[in-house]
């Protein structure tokens, strides 16, 4: 019990972020019209690629002879980049079409 309390107080900031951002996410999305659901899903998907920064840190820390970490890290960076870049480009392509009005 005490260790849980200690863990909570040690990570107080993160827990604040967690709670506030959950509410924020709910509020923002609740107002999106149905027509934008597909681009929105794709946009959110691109944002979930933020994990690529974790991959960059993993890689940047690895010793240059630690091939396991380097190879896995490289793979993580590649996959994360595809997620981020592909996600934003695809969303842009979809939204570009919404703009064409006559």
């Amino acid at each position, binding site marked *: 019990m005490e260790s849980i309390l200690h863990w909570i107080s040690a990570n107080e900031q993160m827990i604040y972020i967690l709670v506030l951002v959950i509410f924020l996410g709910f509020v923002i999305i609740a107002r999106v019209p149905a*027509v934008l659901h597909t681009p929105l899903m794709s946009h959110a998907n691109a944002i979930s690629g*933020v994990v690529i920064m974790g991959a*960059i840190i993993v*890689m940047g820390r690895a010793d240059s002879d630690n091939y396991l970490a380097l190879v896995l890290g490289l793979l993580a960076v590649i996959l994360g*980049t595809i997620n981020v870049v592909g*996600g934003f480009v695809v969303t842009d392509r979809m939204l570009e079409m919404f703009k064409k009005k006559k």
Partner: protein
Amino acid sequence: MGVSILSIVYIIGAVTFIMGLKMMSNPASARKGNIVAGAGMVAAILGTIFLFRNEDGTLLKNHGWIFGGIAIGTVIGVLSAKRVKMTAMPEMVSLFNGLGGASATLISVVEFNHLAALGFPPEKSGAGIMAILFSGVILGNITFSGSAIAWGKLSGKFKDFAFKGQHIVNIVLLLASIVLSAVLGGNLGSGNEMLLFYSVFALSIIYGVLFVLPIGGADMPVVISLLNSLSGLSAACGGFLYDNKVVFTGGILVGAAGTILTVLMCKAMNRSLTNVLIGSFGGGSAAAGGSKEQGAHKEITLNDSAVVMSYASKVMIVPGYGLAVAQAQHTCHELQKMLESKGVEVKYAIHPVAGRMPGHMNVLLAEADVSYDKLIEMEQANDEFPSVDVVLILGANDVVNPAAKSDPASPIYGMPILDVGQAKNVIVNKRSMKPGYAGIENDLFFQPKTSMLFGDAKKVLQDLVTEIKGM
């Protein structure tokens, strides 16, 4: 100095993600929102590469590897995003999502190996950290394998697959991964860590596969949205591990937004999330559909359809999945212009879940230059149907099935539908009498007002355009 600049970059990054999502809620600002969030992401990534400092104050190394990876990923990402057909968008999103999940898992794997090499120092491998590391692996793996299956299903590579007691097997698998993680967390340094760790890894992969396999193709958008929110959470786990607040914020934001989006999609189909995930769609419907005696349907020729439509004063087009598959959105727009030149008022009635993802139909029609104000949403369309002369249904089925209103035994009972029966005439274009995605018979096809116009949507539309032109 560098570290404080990085903090500012991260704060700006987090703000752009929030603003981007907010701007996405309005068609006018959506594109800008996407670019804003993208710019924030690029800034945060560059900041991480050049300004991030480890606990001992050293900068990140291996820039060659990092930029190599980014270059490869960018080329693949841009090419696949530019080349994908608009109709294949759901698969693409699913695939990208799965890759993000895999990336999150890999980070946890490297981190675990790193901790193992250090001999699991207690200050770096406490219960909290371990719980988050394992959550990252489990969530990332479910996202990865689940999205891969969803991708396969949407592109027609895998069929629905379910066996008796699958839900129980799934629950056991998930519980086993969690229990094994707990055992592992309590026995660090026992020598079996790697075996246990990779067991958790394997179990969560299998869980992802079995979790998505039995869910029907029509429900894939909901599943992708759910997996998207899981990938956000797995990213957040990575952010927590590295005490990286922009990754954490972004991940949680996607987790929360994805969850709400999933719920909104379920609402549009008037079903609960549990029903989507556990009630395999195809199963119950066979019994409901089979017991009913169906009448005869009536066919209409191309020529008659062309006559009926060009002498109507108001035509409502109901596009569906079939239109998307046949890539007929451009031809559809041609038909619209042709009818308009004859003085016919043409509108499109868009069901919220028409196509393969909510809003997908709007994107497809927008691609074909159909103007935005021609597309009307379900409630308004239902108000207008009584004044409509001809409804042309193009490859839509379940969204116009009256069983959703009248037959409590139907699996889609309660789903709001486009009430096309109110219009004076209904012409249904389908490839055959085969039931739609949900596998349910549609009484609409047997009503006296309804005429069937069989054929591939694109071919039929082209022929209609030619017919009307010649009149």
